[in-house]
């Protein structure tokens, strides 16, 4: 019996560790972005291309990972509260009609950090809420 319970606990622990849900997903921006924190609704407006300027009126450049990347799936669902396919619907509608640019897609988290570091007004996300050189991490309100 205790053996079974131990197994069960191990299973729970394993699923927690393996789960891609970033309880502390990191929102990263280029250091020239003059904000320290961001609200979920603001983040949602940025990722649905409705907010295109930072408060200092510099244009926002949005970076994303591929639609089926686990970090992207987790960011979309857990942080934005939107399924990845709904985000894609919005980007396609806005971009193919010429009203906005779709977010710039990068291949992995390393590239995400590199592009956000190098792009004024850039915003992206990583799986861990860590401090990286030359990138600002935003606090979620």
């Amino acid at each position: 019996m205790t053996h079974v319970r131990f197994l069960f606990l191990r299973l729970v622990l394993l699923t927690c560790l393996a789960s891609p849900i970033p309880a502390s997903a990191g929102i990263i921006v280029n250091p020239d972005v003059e904000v320290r924190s961001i609200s979920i609704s603001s983040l949602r407006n940025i990722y649905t291309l409705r907010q295109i300027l930072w408060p200092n009126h510099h244009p926002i450049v949005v970076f994303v990972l591929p639609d089926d990347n686990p970090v992207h799936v987790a960011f979309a669902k857990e942080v934005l509260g939107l399924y990845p396919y709904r985000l894609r619907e919005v980007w396609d509608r806005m971009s193919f009609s010429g009203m906005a640019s779709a977010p710039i897609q990068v291949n992995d988290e390393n590239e995400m950090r590199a592009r956000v570091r190098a792009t004024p007004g850039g915003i992206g996300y990583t799986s861990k809420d860590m401090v990286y050189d030359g990138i600002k991490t935003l606090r979620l309100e």
Partner: protein
Amino acid sequence: MTASRLSGWSSLLLSGLLAISPAWADELAGPRYHIQGFAAQGLIGSTNNNFFGNSRDGVSTEFTEAGLHGTWQPLDAMRLSGQVLYRRAGASDKDGVRVDYAQADWQFYQTTTTQLGLKFGKVKLPYGLYNETRDVPFTRPGILLPQSVYVDNSRDLLLAAPGAFLHGASVQKYGATDFLLGWVRPDFDSPSVDYSFLGTTRPGKLKGKGALGARLRWDLPTDTTLMLTYANATGDYTPGNADVLRAGNIHFRNLLFSAQQRLDTLTLTAEYGEPRFDTANFGPFLPNSHRVIQAAYLQGEWRFLPAWELMLRHDIFYRDKHDKSGRQFAAATGLPAHSMFARDTTLGLRWDTTPNLMLRAEFHHVDGTGWLPGPDNPVFLSREQRWNMWLLQAAYRF
């Protein structure tokens, strides 16, 4: 231009699109520019009537779509964008490669929550939920759009036209709103438009005089979208050689209501319109007429797995709201009553195989020939009231 002259171009464009590998994709987007594209091929089979080629009791391969889209922001407040499109749709669309739209958008007022702009050039026309991206297979709820509202028959009218639109968008606590208001000169001059408005292809030329377009969209915090589109267009006819028609005019008005509710993985959509259509001064062979069309559909989409979606739709179209069965029309003209209506029940399946590849299958059961493409079914009397259609489509994007 003829289809044969363009077939070389189109295969070049198609192979070019397919040759772009994901490794290149890194170069296709930057902070100020973005290039994207798609290519799709369909297979169509049907009973009793043709749709986009010889699909009756066979398989038509004549439904191909490919597009190359680019956008460039030379200034923070200026966006240039355009799309080159290749499209083949049976006998209804043999134009091959064309410039779908090319517009400049000057956003003269920008804050973090509000934008106002003026777009001009050959601009995309706002019409309902799907029109502006109607040729991008990934943005459609099915292989075919609901034919009642988005009539591929008179699609040339709805695509893009030279003109200008004032537009604005704002996001507030009550949700996001946007509007478009503008004036364009729509393209009436195509065989399929002749078919739908003048009964058959005519030797003369139908020319758009001017059209007013307006749209209001409201995305509520409850995951609801409400939309109103208004269109008001007029066209003049110049008779051709040995033409039985005189120099007449046509007038088209429509107020289209759109509603969408998103509930977790479920999307419910409805659109309803009563387009009003008048013809006048065409002489004895096309008496003056005033008709109220009724077009509506109800649609459910269910993402039952992250990459799989099921779609069910019921779509109705009545060419004359006051003669839905077509009996009065049949009595007056001797032509079949079923050309005055169409009720389409559609079941569709979508599989996003990879983020770049989508496969789709769709089945239609149709009662009526109200939106049957005329050029694919030139013999009026051999059209049949009840027909089925299945479609398969593979679509690639980069």
